[in-house]
């Protein structure tokens, strides 16, 4: 086993994924055994002994240790795997580039078929020799393949062979596999780390559940409060399953595996949000979360169906290879030639299509058996390239009619609008999971779950899944889809931030802040800042986990008081929690040196670059900029209201206390990471801490984990290193790089304004919040009602849904049931008559027959006299009679 892992270190991540699954299975079996034995456990019996061995009625914290150990080990595996990956990724990347260059050199002589082999250019020979000399006796391709094999692997799960797919003998293949790149590796470390801390935190936080009976103060029954069995083990079992689902989602190398994990994550969130399911609010919240997510998943499934139909695979690499144009050889460059009018002259503009989505107008099949396909900028179809020809394209020399050669059969095409629909569908799934506008309503309600669950769902895992998927399937998205993503993100981040300003429940503030930050991530991805969006996902995971666990610590310390209006002045009572949360607040506000600064600045710069190039979308920059100030305001408002000022509720204040070490240690660790996680690495020029563009994590993501689209490398940074740009957003990215610093100052200014307002309103009391509320009652009410989204959905969807359901019920009761009843009554009547017929006619006939035979028999009885003499007489007489008859017959015949 050790040897296997050494040969394929990617398996470390697979082990990390399976560990929580093992823990889940173990806890499930344990719980099931206890449940099964409980009724038979009589005092002193054998069963009772076994039951007591398994923990008896109060099993203690064992399940927590199992789950925590599993996720801790998973973290260890991921961390080691991450280390190994870091050591290999640079070499892998270098080899890939080198191989591409070699490929270009090799391909040249073979390109022109007319040119004889012998006429090789001597110069090229020398060039090749030089290249080969540089790496003598090394099988570069082989080395590269070995390195790739370390981090990729899959097993075929199902194979559908259909003659309709492009390559009939392969068919369509469903696989289970893993693909580790920088994004997955970093996410693994982040998720397992945060999950470990949350497990640890939960041991303290959920300790109430260890008791044999727990009284739920929020559920009222006729006999007082509701009492139930403690659910400590169940909680950790769900956590384990949740962790497994999330890790499997990160691990997957194909969309289908992601979809399966996606649904598992959904059901786990349902179970965890509804953990206190006896409370109506909790069970409603769980339902809301689940149903809202179903809406998104419907879109996801549509996307999957479209891709499966046209591409016959869910594997990311294969999908991207088909949809994105491969890197071209020197001879087979795919170039789009457009005739454009400039200054009354017709010019030809050439666009290199490397790694882009190629649109075309598919022509008719010609008589030669191949198809003539014209490339066109606004073509109706998307070219699908052969899926196994990754990396390089050996096309024909001429590009105007790309497929004027017999190999064209390998190429396919799909309608462009269907690709857009597929992209939108997958994004809809992400909208649901990441709580984006217009499906953001479920997330704040999901606060009904225990606080560690809120942290796990809102920081590290479930909501991250949507952003992660957008990042993963990035090359599938067309410009239209990306623009949709940007706008959805921009609207979400603004709406959620404004709502967070008026919330008074500490967890609700954090929930809306999460929605807002997810909006930032989506916006970052949509405007071509792949790295920016995902970097923010990572930094946000740390500081939001910190903030949630901090709020959990506050809530625990205040004996389950969540209303900030009853807090205040808690700083001296819980110093560790307060300081740790302050780190989180500073990070989310984007104060320089804190992790949030690096990621948020990059998103804002990207948005600015995008707005510069596309002036009509300037809103995409204004909204996040304004929201940066709002974010600072509401986060500081929360912190000031909780920890500063005078205690507003003496009772809460007196009983407040600092939490035990299981809860504060995770807070301290997360606080440290919230500050440092995005820091740059010191290099030969010093430690560029104050350069937001130098984040080490961002650098790793950008250079080693880019989707196929980030390719162009003609821009250099201050030290002469090339910076890859997104092929679809070259101009935007360049503008973003150029204006990064300026945008950063602008953002700082806005943050300062937000901070000043927060100080004025909530710390120094220069302004009275109540007065502000009275000044703008309309706005306040509007925000307090969360922009009336719940009311809108209630009026637009829930209420009509109920009405339709009512109709359906009535239809069922009256039409369907009525029809069935009518049929029944008919049947009853028919049976009545049928019975009459049966009894009267059929039975009557049979009875008549029986009666007749009886009568005949009865008559014949008299003949049986029992007197021997009369029998003899009969005999004699009969003989005489027969003789007479015989004679008469003979006489009649004879005449």
């Amino acid at each position, binding site marked *: 086993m050790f040897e296997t892992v050494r040969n394929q270190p990617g398996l470390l991540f697979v082990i990390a994924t399976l560990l929580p699954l093992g823990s889940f299975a173990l806890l499930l079996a344990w719980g099931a055994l206890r449940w099964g034995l409980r009724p038979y456990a009589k005092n002193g019996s054998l069963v009772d002994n076994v039951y007591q061995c398994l923990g008896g009625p109060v099993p203690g914290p064992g399940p927590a240790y199992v789950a925590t150990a599993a996720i801790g080990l998973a973290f260890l595996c991921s961390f080691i795997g991450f280390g190994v990956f870091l050591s290999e990724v640079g070499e892998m990347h270098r080899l890939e580039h080198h191989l591409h260059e070699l490929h270009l050199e090799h391909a040249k002589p073979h390109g022109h078929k007319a040119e004889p082999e012998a006429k090789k250019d001597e110069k090229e020979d020398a060039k090749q020799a030089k290249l080969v000399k540089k790496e003598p006796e090394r099988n570069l391709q082989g080395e590269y393949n070995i390195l790739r094999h370390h981090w990729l692997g899959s097993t075929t799960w199902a194979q559908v062979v259909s003659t309709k797919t492009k390559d009939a003998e392969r068919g369509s293949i469903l696989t289970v596999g893993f693909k580790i790149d920088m994004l997955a590796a970093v996410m693994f470390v982040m998720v397992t780390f945060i999950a470990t801390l949350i497990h640890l935190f939960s041991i303290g936080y959920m300790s109430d559940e260890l008791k044999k009976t727990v009284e739920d103060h929020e559920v009222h029954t006729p006999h007082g409060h509701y009492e139930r069995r403690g659910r400590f083990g169940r909680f950790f079992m769900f956590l384990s399953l949740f962790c497994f689902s999330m890790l499997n989602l990160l691990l997957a190398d194909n969309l289908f595996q992601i979809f399966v994990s996606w649904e598992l994550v959904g059901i786990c969130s349902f179970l965890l949000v509804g953990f206190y399911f006896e409370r109506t609010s909790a069970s409603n919240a769980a339902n809301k979360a689940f149903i809202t997510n179903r809406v998104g998943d419907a879109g996801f499934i549509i996307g999957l169906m479209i891709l499966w139909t046209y591409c016959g695979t869910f594997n990311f690499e294969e999908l991207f290879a088909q949809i994105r144009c491969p890197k071209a050889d020197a001879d087979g460059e795919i170039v789009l030639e457009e005739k454009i009018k400039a200054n009354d002259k017709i010019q030809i503009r050439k666009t290199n299509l490397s790694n882009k989505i190629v649109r075309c107008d598919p022509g008719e099949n010609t008589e030669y058996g191949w198809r003539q396909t014209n490339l066109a900028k606004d073509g109706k179809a998307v070219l699908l390239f052969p899926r196994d020809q990754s990396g390089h394209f050996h096309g024909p020399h001429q590009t105007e009619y790309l497929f004027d050669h017999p190999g064209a059969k390998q190429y396919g095409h799909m309608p462009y609008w269907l690709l857009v629909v597929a992209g939108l569908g997958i994004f809809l799934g992400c909208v649901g999971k990441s709580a984006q506008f217009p499906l953001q309503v479920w997330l704040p309600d999901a606060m009904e779950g225990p606080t560690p669950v809120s942290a796990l769902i809102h920081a590290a895992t479930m909501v991250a899944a949507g952003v992660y998927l957008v990042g993963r399937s990035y090359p599938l998205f067309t410009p239209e889809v990306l623009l949709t993503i940007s706008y959805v993100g921009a609207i979400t981040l603004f709406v959620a931030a404004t709502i967070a300003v008026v919330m008074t429940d500490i967890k609700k503030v954090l929930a809306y802040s999460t929605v807002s930050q997810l909006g930032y991530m989506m916006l970052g991805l949509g405007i071509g800042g792949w790295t920016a969006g995902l970097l923010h996902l990572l930094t946000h995971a740390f500081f939001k986990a910190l903030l949630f666990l901090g709020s959990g610590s506050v809530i625990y310390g205040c004996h389950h008081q969540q209303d900030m209006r009853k807090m205040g002045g808690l700083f001296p009572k819980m110093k560790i929690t307060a300081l740790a949360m302050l780190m989180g607040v500073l990070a989310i506000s984007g104060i320089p040196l804190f992790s949030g600064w690096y990621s948020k600045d990059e998103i804002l710069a990207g948005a600015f670059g995008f707005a510069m190039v596309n002036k009509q979308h300037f809103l995409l920059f204004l909204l996040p900029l304004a929201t940066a100030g709002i974010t600072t305001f509401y986060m500081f408002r929360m912190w000031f209201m909780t920890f500063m000022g005078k205690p507003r509720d003496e009772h809460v204040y007196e009983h407040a206390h600092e939490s035990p070490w299981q809860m504060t240690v995770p807070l301290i660790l997360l606080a440290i990471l919230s500050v440092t996680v995005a820091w740059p690495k010191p290099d030969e020029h010093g430690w560029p801490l104050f350069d937001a563009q130098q984040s080490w994590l961002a650098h790793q993501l950008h250079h080693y984990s880019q989707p196929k689209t980030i390719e162009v490398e003609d821009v250099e940074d201050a030290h002469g290193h090339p910076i890859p740009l997104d092929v679809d957003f070259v101009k935007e990215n360049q503008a973003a790089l150029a204006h990064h610093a300026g945008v950063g100052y602008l953002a700082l200014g806005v943050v300062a304004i937000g901070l000043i307002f927060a100080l004025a309103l909530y710390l120094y009391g220069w302004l009275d919040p109540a007065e502000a509320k009275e000044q703008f009652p309309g706005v306040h009410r509007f925000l307090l009602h969360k922009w009336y989204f719940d009311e809108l959905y209630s009026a637009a969807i829930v209420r009509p849904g109920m009405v339709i359901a009512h109709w359906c019920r009535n239809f069922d009761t009256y039409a369907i049931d009525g029809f069935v009843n009518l049929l029944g009554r008919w049947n009853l009547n028919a049976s009545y008559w049928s019975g009459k017929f049966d009894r009267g006619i059929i039975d009557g006939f049979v009875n008549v027959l029986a009666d007749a035979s009886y009568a005949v028999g009865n008559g014949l009885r008299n003949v049986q006299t*029992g007197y021997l*003499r009369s029998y003899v007489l009969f005999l004699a007489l009969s003989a005489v009679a027969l003789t007479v008859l015989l004679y008469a017959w003979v006489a009649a015949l004879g005449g």
Partner: protein
Amino acid sequence: MSDEVHLYPYLVLGALLFTCGVVCMATKRNAIGILIGVELVLNGANINFVAFSKYNAVFQVEGMIFALFVIVLAAGEAAVALAIVLNFYNNHATVDVDGADELKG
């Protein structure tokens, strides 16, 4: 005038015996009497067989064999019937066949 006796007197004798037998069977209430009637019937038939054997070449052998057969049969029948009669007597202390009406329908 020939002294030869013809077939018909035999047949008439047979018929006479047969009729006597039948009448005996039909009128006697004594079981033994009925048995005698049966013997008469059988012997009437036997006379017919023998007469045909003599006067008809076709039945020369068959007639005699049947006659012998009937004699043997009659012996068997008499043995069985007398056994029945004895048993009947044991059970009913009489040989009046009118008393044997248990099988009456």
